[in-house]
Protein backbone atom coordinates (compact mmCIF):
# COMPACT_ATOMS: atom_id res chain seq x y z
CA UNK A 1 0.00 0.00 0.00
CA UNK A 2 1.30 3.45 -0.86
CA UNK A 3 1.50 6.10 1.89
CA UNK A 4 -1.11 8.22 0.17
CA UNK A 5 -3.49 5.25 0.18
CA UNK A 6 -2.94 4.64 3.88
CA UNK A 7 -3.61 8.26 4.71
CA UNK A 8 -6.71 8.56 2.59
CA UNK A 9 -9.91 7.11 4.04
CA UNK A 10 -12.25 5.36 1.64
CA UNK A 11 -14.74 7.83 0.20
CA UNK A 12 -18.28 7.58 1.55
CA UNK A 13 -20.92 6.30 -0.89
CA UNK A 14 -22.25 9.79 -1.38
CA UNK A 15 -18.83 11.37 -2.03
CA UNK A 16 -19.00 14.22 -4.47
CA UNK A 17 -18.07 13.50 -8.05
CA UNK A 18 -14.95 15.66 -7.93
CA UNK A 19 -13.54 13.65 -5.03
CA UNK A 20 -14.15 10.30 -6.75
CA UNK A 21 -12.72 11.59 -10.03
CA UNK A 22 -9.60 12.91 -8.33
CA UNK A 23 -8.98 9.60 -6.54
CA UNK A 24 -9.43 7.56 -9.71
CA UNK A 25 -7.34 9.86 -11.84
CA UNK A 26 -4.46 9.58 -9.38
CA UNK A 27 -4.12 5.83 -9.80
CA UNK A 28 -5.92 4.77 -12.97
CA UNK A 29 -4.03 3.09 -15.81
CA UNK A 30 -4.95 5.96 -18.08
CA UNK A 31 -6.23 3.56 -20.73
CA UNK A 32 -9.85 4.58 -20.49
CA UNK A 33 -11.51 7.68 -21.87
CA UNK A 34 -13.94 8.42 -19.07
CA UNK A 35 -16.98 10.62 -18.80
CA UNK A 36 -16.91 12.89 -15.77
CA UNK A 37 -19.74 11.02 -14.15
CA UNK A 38 -19.44 8.85 -11.03
CA UNK A 39 -22.08 6.11 -11.03
CA UNK A 40 -22.69 4.81 -7.52
CA UNK A 41 -25.98 2.90 -7.53
CA UNK A 42 -28.34 1.00 -9.80
CA UNK A 43 -31.77 -0.58 -9.71
CA UNK A 44 -33.34 -2.36 -12.67
CA UNK A 45 -32.67 -0.15 -15.70
CA UNK A 46 -31.92 2.95 -13.63
CA UNK A 47 -28.61 4.38 -12.41
CA UNK A 48 -27.73 7.17 -10.04
CA UNK A 49 -24.62 9.30 -9.94
CA UNK A 50 -22.82 10.60 -6.86
CA UNK A 51 -24.84 13.81 -7.03
CA UNK A 52 -28.11 11.90 -6.81
CA UNK A 53 -29.06 12.38 -10.46
CA UNK A 54 -31.09 9.54 -11.98
CA UNK A 55 -30.51 8.08 -15.46
CA UNK A 56 -32.06 5.45 -17.65
CA UNK A 57 -29.23 3.06 -18.36
CA UNK A 58 -28.75 2.32 -22.06
CA UNK A 59 -25.09 1.40 -21.58
CA UNK A 60 -25.99 -1.68 -19.57
CA UNK A 61 -22.47 -2.35 -18.38
CA UNK A 62 -21.58 -2.60 -22.09
CA UNK A 63 -23.74 -5.69 -22.22
CA UNK A 64 -22.96 -7.20 -18.84
CA UNK A 65 -26.14 -5.96 -17.13
CA UNK A 66 -28.87 -7.73 -19.11
CA UNK A 67 -30.56 -8.74 -15.88
CA UNK A 68 -30.67 -5.18 -14.57
CA UNK A 69 -29.02 -3.71 -11.54
CA UNK A 70 -29.49 -5.01 -8.01
CA UNK A 71 -31.17 -8.32 -8.80
CA UNK A 72 -32.00 -9.82 -5.40
CA UNK A 73 -31.73 -13.49 -6.40
CA UNK A 74 -28.24 -13.03 -7.82
CA UNK A 75 -27.13 -10.98 -4.82
CA UNK A 76 -28.38 -13.64 -2.43
CA UNK A 77 -26.73 -16.44 -4.39
CA UNK A 78 -23.39 -14.60 -4.37
CA UNK A 79 -23.60 -13.91 -0.64
CA UNK A 80 -24.53 -17.49 0.21
CA UNK A 81 -21.76 -18.96 -1.94
CA UNK A 82 -19.20 -16.50 -0.56
CA UNK A 83 -19.99 -17.80 2.91
CA UNK A 84 -19.77 -21.42 1.73
CA UNK A 85 -16.86 -21.62 -0.72
CA UNK A 86 -15.57 -18.91 -3.07
CA UNK A 87 -12.42 -20.55 -4.45
CA UNK A 88 -12.01 -24.01 -5.91
CA UNK A 89 -9.88 -24.52 -9.00
CA UNK A 90 -10.52 -27.19 -11.58
CA UNK A 91 -7.99 -29.35 -9.81
CA UNK A 92 -11.11 -30.54 -7.99
CA UNK A 93 -14.75 -31.11 -8.81
CA UNK A 94 -17.30 -28.73 -7.31
CA UNK A 95 -21.07 -28.84 -6.79
CA UNK A 96 -21.81 -25.30 -8.07
CA UNK A 97 -19.72 -25.85 -11.21
CA UNK A 98 -21.51 -29.13 -11.90
CA UNK A 99 -24.84 -27.34 -11.44
CA UNK A 100 -23.83 -24.60 -13.89
CA UNK A 101 -22.82 -27.17 -16.52
CA UNK A 102 -26.28 -28.72 -16.16
CA UNK A 103 -27.98 -25.33 -16.45
CA UNK A 104 -25.94 -24.42 -19.55
CA UNK A 105 -26.68 -27.76 -21.16
CA UNK A 106 -30.41 -26.97 -20.92
CA UNK A 107 -30.10 -23.65 -22.77
CA UNK A 108 -27.36 -24.46 -25.31
CA UNK A 109 -27.78 -26.47 -28.53
CA UNK A 110 -27.31 -30.18 -27.73
CA UNK A 111 -24.22 -30.37 -29.97
CA UNK A 112 -22.38 -27.81 -27.83
CA UNK A 113 -22.09 -30.13 -24.86
CA UNK A 114 -18.63 -29.22 -23.56
CA UNK A 115 -17.80 -25.96 -21.84
CA UNK A 116 -14.58 -24.20 -20.87
CA UNK A 117 -15.18 -21.64 -18.14
CA UNK A 118 -13.01 -18.54 -17.93
CA UNK A 119 -13.28 -14.92 -16.84
CA UNK A 120 -14.10 -12.63 -19.76
CA UNK A 121 -15.13 -12.45 -23.38
CA UNK A 122 -11.62 -11.87 -24.65
CA UNK A 123 -10.47 -14.93 -22.71
CA UNK A 124 -13.26 -16.96 -24.26
CA UNK A 125 -12.14 -15.90 -27.74
CA UNK A 126 -8.50 -16.66 -26.90
CA UNK A 127 -9.47 -20.13 -25.75
CA UNK A 128 -11.62 -20.81 -28.80
CA UNK A 129 -8.75 -19.88 -31.12
CA UNK A 130 -6.34 -22.15 -29.27
CA UNK A 131 -8.82 -25.02 -29.30
CA UNK A 132 -9.42 -24.52 -33.04
CA UNK A 133 -5.72 -24.53 -33.81
CA UNK A 134 -5.11 -27.62 -31.71
CA UNK A 135 -8.08 -29.45 -33.18
CA UNK A 136 -7.42 -28.66 -36.85
CA UNK A 137 -3.61 -28.46 -36.77
CA UNK A 138 -4.07 -25.29 -38.82
CA UNK A 139 -3.17 -21.71 -37.88
CA UNK A 140 -5.19 -19.37 -40.09
CA UNK A 141 -8.00 -17.43 -38.40
CA UNK A 142 -10.51 -15.57 -40.56
CA UNK A 143 -12.63 -12.78 -39.10
CA UNK A 144 -14.77 -9.95 -40.41
CA UNK A 145 -14.04 -6.32 -41.08
CA UNK A 146 -15.57 -4.16 -38.34
CA UNK A 147 -15.58 -7.20 -36.02
CA UNK A 148 -14.72 -6.88 -32.36
CA UNK A 149 -13.49 -9.83 -30.31
CA UNK A 150 -11.41 -8.29 -27.55
CA UNK A 151 -8.03 -6.66 -27.13
CA UNK A 152 -5.80 -9.36 -25.68
CA UNK A 153 -3.07 -10.42 -28.08
CA UNK A 154 -4.79 -13.43 -29.64
CA UNK A 155 -8.26 -11.95 -29.72
CA UNK A 156 -6.81 -8.78 -31.19
CA UNK A 157 -5.79 -10.81 -34.22
CA UNK A 158 -9.47 -11.08 -35.08
CA UNK A 159 -10.55 -7.63 -33.95
CA UNK A 160 -10.65 -5.31 -36.92
CA UNK A 161 -9.98 -1.84 -35.52
CA UNK A 162 -6.67 -0.60 -36.95
CA UNK A 163 -6.51 1.85 -34.03
CA UNK A 164 -6.10 -1.11 -31.68
CA UNK A 165 -3.68 -3.10 -33.84
CA UNK A 166 -1.37 -0.70 -35.61
CA UNK A 167 0.63 0.28 -32.53
CA UNK A 168 1.43 -3.41 -32.01
CA UNK A 169 2.59 -4.11 -35.54
CA UNK A 170 -0.74 -4.59 -37.28
CA UNK A 171 -1.04 -7.65 -39.49
CA UNK A 172 2.67 -8.40 -39.14
CA UNK A 173 2.14 -9.23 -35.51
CA UNK A 174 -0.53 -11.81 -36.31
CA UNK A 175 0.50 -13.64 -39.48
CA UNK A 176 -2.13 -15.86 -41.00
CA UNK A 177 -5.12 -13.77 -39.98
CA UNK A 178 -7.49 -12.43 -42.61
CA UNK A 179 -10.57 -10.22 -42.52
CA UNK A 180 -13.49 -10.42 -44.96
CA UNK A 181 -16.11 -7.71 -45.53
CA UNK A 182 -19.10 -8.32 -43.26
CA UNK A 183 -22.19 -9.64 -45.06
CA UNK A 184 -20.34 -10.17 -48.36
CA UNK A 185 -21.09 -13.80 -49.07
CA UNK A 186 -18.80 -13.98 -52.09
CA UNK A 187 -15.79 -13.13 -49.92
CA UNK A 188 -16.21 -16.22 -47.73
CA UNK A 189 -15.30 -18.75 -50.44
CA UNK A 190 -12.01 -17.02 -51.15
CA UNK A 191 -11.02 -16.33 -47.55
CA UNK A 192 -11.88 -19.62 -45.84
CA UNK A 193 -9.25 -21.88 -47.33
CA UNK A 194 -8.10 -25.44 -46.62
CA UNK A 195 -5.52 -24.04 -44.17
CA UNK A 196 -8.12 -22.11 -42.16
CA UNK A 197 -8.51 -23.23 -38.58
CA UNK A 198 -11.57 -21.14 -37.82
CA UNK A 199 -13.87 -18.39 -38.97
CA UNK A 200 -15.08 -16.15 -36.14
CA UNK A 201 -18.29 -14.18 -36.51
CA UNK A 202 -20.56 -11.85 -34.54
CA UNK A 203 -24.19 -12.26 -35.60
CA UNK A 204 -24.73 -8.61 -34.73
CA UNK A 205 -21.63 -6.48 -34.83
CA UNK A 206 -21.73 -4.35 -31.72
CA UNK A 207 -18.76 -2.03 -31.70
CA UNK A 208 -18.74 -2.29 -35.50
CA UNK A 209 -21.88 -0.16 -35.63
CA UNK A 210 -24.83 -2.35 -34.55
CA UNK A 211 -24.97 -4.28 -37.80
CA UNK A 212 -26.96 -7.54 -37.92
CA UNK A 213 -25.57 -10.26 -40.16
CA UNK A 214 -27.80 -11.34 -42.99
CA UNK A 215 -29.22 -14.84 -42.64
CA UNK A 216 -27.54 -15.71 -45.93
CA UNK A 217 -24.12 -14.63 -44.64
CA UNK A 218 -24.48 -16.66 -41.44
CA UNK A 219 -25.75 -19.70 -43.31
CA UNK A 220 -23.02 -19.50 -45.93
CA UNK A 221 -20.36 -19.10 -43.26
CA UNK A 222 -21.48 -22.36 -41.71
CA UNK A 223 -21.60 -24.10 -45.08
CA UNK A 224 -18.19 -22.93 -46.28
CA UNK A 225 -16.55 -23.78 -42.96
CA UNK A 226 -17.95 -27.30 -43.11
CA UNK A 227 -16.86 -27.74 -46.71
CA UNK A 228 -13.30 -26.59 -45.96
CA UNK A 229 -12.88 -28.40 -42.65
CA UNK A 230 -12.66 -25.11 -40.76
CA UNK A 231 -14.44 -24.55 -37.47
CA UNK A 232 -17.12 -21.89 -37.10
CA UNK A 233 -16.80 -19.81 -33.94
CA UNK A 234 -19.71 -17.50 -33.14
CA UNK A 235 -18.88 -14.70 -30.73
CA UNK A 236 -21.99 -14.08 -28.64
CA UNK A 237 -20.21 -12.18 -25.90
CA UNK A 238 -22.54 -9.23 -26.48
CA UNK A 239 -25.51 -10.88 -28.20
CA UNK A 240 -25.90 -13.77 -25.76
CA UNK A 241 -28.24 -14.19 -22.82
CA UNK A 242 -31.46 -12.80 -24.29
CA UNK A 243 -30.02 -9.58 -25.73
CA UNK A 244 -31.35 -10.16 -29.25
CA UNK A 245 -34.70 -11.60 -28.20
CA UNK A 246 -33.62 -15.23 -27.85
CA UNK A 247 -31.34 -16.82 -25.28
CA UNK A 248 -28.67 -16.83 -28.02
CA UNK A 249 -28.69 -15.08 -31.40
CA UNK A 250 -27.85 -18.37 -33.14
CA UNK A 251 -31.47 -19.38 -32.42
CA UNK A 252 -32.71 -16.43 -34.45
CA UNK A 253 -30.39 -17.38 -37.33
CA UNK A 254 -31.00 -21.11 -37.20
CA UNK A 255 -27.32 -22.09 -37.16
CA UNK A 256 -25.28 -24.15 -34.73
CA UNK A 257 -21.57 -23.26 -34.73
CA UNK A 258 -18.73 -25.49 -33.61
CA UNK A 259 -17.98 -23.12 -30.75
CA UNK A 260 -19.89 -20.35 -29.01
CA UNK A 261 -18.06 -17.64 -27.03
CA UNK A 262 -19.98 -16.24 -24.08
CA UNK A 263 -19.38 -13.70 -21.31
CA UNK A 264 -20.75 -10.31 -20.19
CA UNK A 265 -24.18 -11.14 -18.71
CA UNK A 266 -23.52 -14.83 -18.13
CA UNK A 267 -23.13 -14.34 -14.37
CA UNK A 268 -25.33 -11.33 -13.64
CA UNK A 269 -22.42 -8.89 -13.58
CA UNK A 270 -19.80 -11.10 -11.94
CA UNK A 271 -16.83 -11.52 -14.31
CA UNK A 272 -17.13 -14.80 -16.20
CA UNK A 273 -16.60 -16.12 -19.71
CA UNK A 274 -17.23 -19.43 -21.39
CA UNK A 275 -16.64 -21.36 -24.58
CA UNK A 276 -19.24 -23.97 -25.41
CA UNK A 277 -17.93 -26.32 -28.06
CA UNK A 278 -18.81 -29.46 -29.97
CA UNK A 279 -17.21 -32.86 -30.38
CA UNK A 280 -15.74 -31.58 -33.65
CA UNK A 281 -12.86 -30.33 -31.51
CA UNK A 282 -11.96 -33.88 -30.52
CA UNK A 283 -10.03 -34.45 -27.30
CA UNK A 284 -8.08 -31.38 -26.29
CA UNK A 285 -4.62 -32.08 -24.88
CA UNK A 286 -4.54 -32.09 -21.09
CA UNK A 287 -2.97 -28.94 -19.56
CA UNK A 288 -2.84 -27.17 -22.93
CA UNK A 289 -5.04 -24.40 -21.52
CA UNK A 290 -6.26 -23.42 -18.07
CA UNK A 291 -7.20 -20.53 -15.80
CA UNK A 292 -7.08 -20.28 -12.02
CA UNK A 293 -10.35 -18.44 -11.56
CA UNK A 294 -12.27 -20.14 -14.37
CA UNK A 295 -15.27 -22.00 -13.03
CA UNK A 296 -14.86 -20.73 -9.49
CA UNK A 297 -17.86 -21.51 -7.26
CA UNK A 298 -18.69 -17.84 -6.64
CA UNK A 299 -19.06 -17.01 -10.33
CA UNK A 300 -20.82 -20.33 -10.98
CA UNK A 301 -23.38 -19.61 -8.26
CA UNK A 302 -23.95 -16.14 -9.69
CA UNK A 303 -24.38 -17.59 -13.18
CA UNK A 304 -26.85 -20.28 -12.06
CA UNK A 305 -28.93 -17.60 -10.35
CA UNK A 306 -28.64 -15.14 -13.24
CA UNK A 307 -29.71 -17.63 -15.90
CA UNK A 308 -32.56 -18.75 -13.65
CA UNK A 309 -33.74 -15.15 -13.39
CA UNK A 310 -33.44 -14.61 -17.16
CA UNK A 311 -35.79 -17.53 -17.70
CA UNK A 312 -38.17 -16.66 -14.83
CA UNK A 313 -38.52 -13.08 -16.07
CA UNK A 314 -38.63 -14.22 -19.72
CA UNK A 315 -36.09 -11.58 -20.67
CA UNK A 316 -35.94 -12.83 -24.26
CA UNK A 317 -39.60 -11.91 -24.73
CA UNK A 318 -39.10 -8.50 -23.12
CA UNK A 319 -36.05 -7.89 -25.31
CA UNK A 320 -38.16 -8.57 -28.40
CA UNK A 321 -41.08 -6.42 -27.26
CA UNK A 322 -39.06 -3.50 -25.93
CA UNK A 323 -36.60 -3.79 -28.81
CA UNK A 324 -39.44 -3.48 -31.33
CA UNK A 325 -40.76 -0.52 -29.36
CA UNK A 326 -37.36 1.19 -29.25
CA UNK A 327 -36.56 0.59 -32.92
CA UNK A 328 -40.05 1.75 -33.93
CA UNK A 329 -39.74 4.87 -31.81
CA UNK A 330 -36.31 5.73 -33.16
CA UNK A 331 -37.48 5.18 -36.73
CA UNK A 332 -40.32 7.59 -36.07
CA UNK A 333 -37.94 10.44 -35.32
CA UNK A 334 -37.92 12.81 -38.25
CA UNK A 335 -34.48 14.34 -38.45
CA UNK A 336 -32.23 15.08 -41.41
CA UNK A 337 -29.33 14.07 -39.14
CA UNK A 338 -30.42 10.41 -39.06
CA UNK A 339 -29.17 8.01 -41.72
CA UNK A 340 -30.51 4.67 -40.48
CA UNK A 341 -31.93 2.87 -37.45
CA UNK A 342 -31.10 -0.83 -37.05
CA UNK A 343 -30.81 -3.56 -34.48
CA UNK A 344 -32.03 -6.91 -33.22
CA UNK A 345 -33.88 -7.30 -29.95
CA UNK A 346 -32.52 -4.74 -27.52
CA UNK A 347 -29.22 -4.25 -29.31
CA UNK A 348 -30.20 -1.10 -31.15
CA UNK A 349 -28.37 1.67 -32.94
CA UNK A 350 -29.16 4.90 -34.71
CA UNK A 351 -26.65 5.89 -37.34
CA UNK A 352 -26.23 9.60 -37.88
CA UNK A 353 -24.74 11.54 -40.75
CA UNK A 354 -22.45 13.22 -38.26
CA UNK A 355 -20.42 12.40 -35.18
CA UNK A 356 -22.51 10.62 -32.54
CA UNK A 357 -20.67 12.32 -29.68
CA UNK A 358 -22.89 15.42 -29.32
CA UNK A 359 -26.06 13.31 -29.40
CA UNK A 360 -24.70 10.94 -26.74
CA UNK A 361 -23.90 14.00 -24.63
CA UNK A 362 -27.35 15.40 -25.33
CA UNK A 363 -28.92 12.16 -24.16
CA UNK A 364 -26.87 12.23 -20.97
CA UNK A 365 -28.01 15.79 -20.30
CA UNK A 366 -31.59 14.51 -20.61
CA UNK A 367 -31.09 11.60 -18.22
CA UNK A 368 -30.26 8.77 -20.64
CA UNK A 369 -26.85 7.09 -20.74
CA UNK A 370 -26.02 5.59 -24.14
CA UNK A 371 -22.77 4.65 -25.83
CA UNK A 372 -21.20 4.85 -29.24
CA UNK A 373 -20.52 2.18 -31.84
CA UNK A 374 -18.05 3.81 -34.15
CA UNK A 375 -18.03 7.56 -34.73
CA UNK A 376 -21.54 7.96 -36.12
CA UNK A 377 -23.69 5.39 -34.29
CA UNK A 378 -25.49 5.86 -30.97
CA UNK A 379 -25.83 2.42 -29.40
CA UNK A 380 -28.58 1.46 -26.95
CA UNK A 381 -27.77 -1.53 -24.77
CA UNK A 382 -30.21 -1.26 -21.85
CA UNK A 383 -30.83 -3.88 -19.20
CA UNK A 384 -33.48 -6.20 -20.59
CA UNK A 385 -35.80 -5.41 -17.68
CA UNK A 386 -36.34 -1.92 -19.10
CA UNK A 387 -40.03 -0.95 -19.06
CA UNK A 388 -42.23 0.38 -21.85
CA UNK A 389 -42.45 3.73 -20.07
CA UNK A 390 -38.66 3.95 -19.84
CA UNK A 391 -38.30 3.13 -23.54
CA UNK A 392 -40.74 5.94 -24.35
CA UNK A 393 -38.55 8.31 -22.33
CA UNK A 394 -35.43 7.13 -24.21
CA UNK A 395 -37.12 7.79 -27.55
CA UNK A 396 -38.31 11.21 -26.40
CA UNK A 397 -34.84 12.11 -25.16
CA UNK A 398 -33.32 11.01 -28.46
CA UNK A 399 -35.79 13.10 -30.44
CA UNK A 400 -34.99 16.11 -28.27
CA UNK A 401 -31.23 15.57 -28.59
CA UNK A 402 -31.58 15.44 -32.37
CA UNK A 403 -33.94 18.40 -32.63
Amino acid at each position, binding site marked *: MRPSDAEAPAPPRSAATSDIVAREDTHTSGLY*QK*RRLAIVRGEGARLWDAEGNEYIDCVGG*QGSANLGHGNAAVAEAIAAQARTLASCTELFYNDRRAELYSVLSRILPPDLDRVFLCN*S*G*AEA*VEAAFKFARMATKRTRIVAT*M*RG*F*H*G*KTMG*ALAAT*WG*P*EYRDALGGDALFPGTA*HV*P*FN*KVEALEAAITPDTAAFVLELVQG*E*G*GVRPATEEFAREAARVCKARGALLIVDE*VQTGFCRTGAMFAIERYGIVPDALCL*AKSIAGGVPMGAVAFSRAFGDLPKRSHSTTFGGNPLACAASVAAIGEMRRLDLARNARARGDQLLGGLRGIESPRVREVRGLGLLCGI*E*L*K*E*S*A*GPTIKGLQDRGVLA*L*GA*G*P*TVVRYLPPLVITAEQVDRVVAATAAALA
Partner: protein
Amino acid sequence: MPKCPECDADVTVGGDAVKGEIVACPDCGAELEVTETSPLALALAPEEEEDWGE
Protein backbone atom coordinates in the same frame (compact mmCIF):
# COMPACT_ATOMS: atom_id res chain seq x y z
CA MET B 1 -17.04 6.70 -57.69
CA PRO B 2 -14.76 7.57 -54.77
CA LYS B 3 -12.57 4.90 -53.20
CA CYS B 4 -12.08 4.14 -49.53
CA PRO B 5 -8.59 5.29 -48.50
CA GLU B 6 -8.38 2.35 -46.07
CA CYS B 7 -9.33 -0.66 -48.21
CA ASP B 8 -9.90 0.72 -51.72
CA ALA B 9 -13.54 -0.37 -51.87
CA ASP B 10 -16.01 1.71 -53.89
CA VAL B 11 -17.93 4.07 -51.63
CA THR B 12 -21.40 5.20 -52.62
CA VAL B 13 -22.44 8.62 -51.36
CA GLY B 14 -25.98 9.96 -51.66
CA GLY B 15 -26.63 12.84 -54.03
CA ASP B 16 -27.87 14.93 -51.10
CA ALA B 17 -24.61 14.58 -49.14
CA VAL B 18 -23.38 17.75 -47.51
CA LYS B 19 -19.91 18.90 -46.59
CA GLY B 20 -18.93 17.53 -43.20
CA GLU B 21 -21.23 14.51 -43.45
CA ILE B 22 -19.71 11.22 -42.34
CA VAL B 23 -20.22 8.04 -44.34
CA ALA B 24 -18.94 4.54 -43.67
CA CYS B 25 -17.05 2.38 -46.12
CA PRO B 26 -19.39 -0.53 -46.93
CA ASP B 27 -16.56 -3.06 -46.63
CA CYS B 28 -14.14 -2.08 -43.89
CA GLY B 29 -16.33 0.38 -42.04
CA ALA B 30 -13.81 3.19 -42.12
CA GLU B 31 -15.56 6.43 -41.26
CA LEU B 32 -15.09 8.95 -44.05
CA GLU B 33 -15.89 12.64 -44.00
CA VAL B 34 -17.25 14.39 -47.06
CA THR B 35 -14.70 17.17 -47.48
CA GLU B 36 -16.02 18.43 -50.83
CA THR B 37 -19.26 17.81 -52.70
CA SER B 38 -18.32 19.07 -56.14
CA PRO B 39 -16.34 17.17 -57.08
CA LEU B 40 -16.97 14.65 -54.33
CA ALA B 41 -13.98 14.14 -52.04
CA LEU B 42 -13.62 11.93 -48.97
CA ALA B 43 -11.07 11.81 -46.17
CA LEU B 44 -10.78 9.70 -43.04
CA ALA B 45 -12.99 11.21 -40.35
CA PRO B 46 -11.47 12.18 -37.01
CA GLU B 47 -11.61 9.35 -34.49
CA GLU B 48 -13.89 9.46 -31.47
CA GLU B 49 -12.05 9.21 -28.18
CA GLU B 50 -14.42 7.02 -26.20
CA ASP B 51 -14.21 3.28 -26.59
CA TRP B 52 -15.70 0.26 -24.89
CA GLY B 53 -14.16 -3.08 -24.00
CA GLU B 54 -15.04 -6.73 -24.57
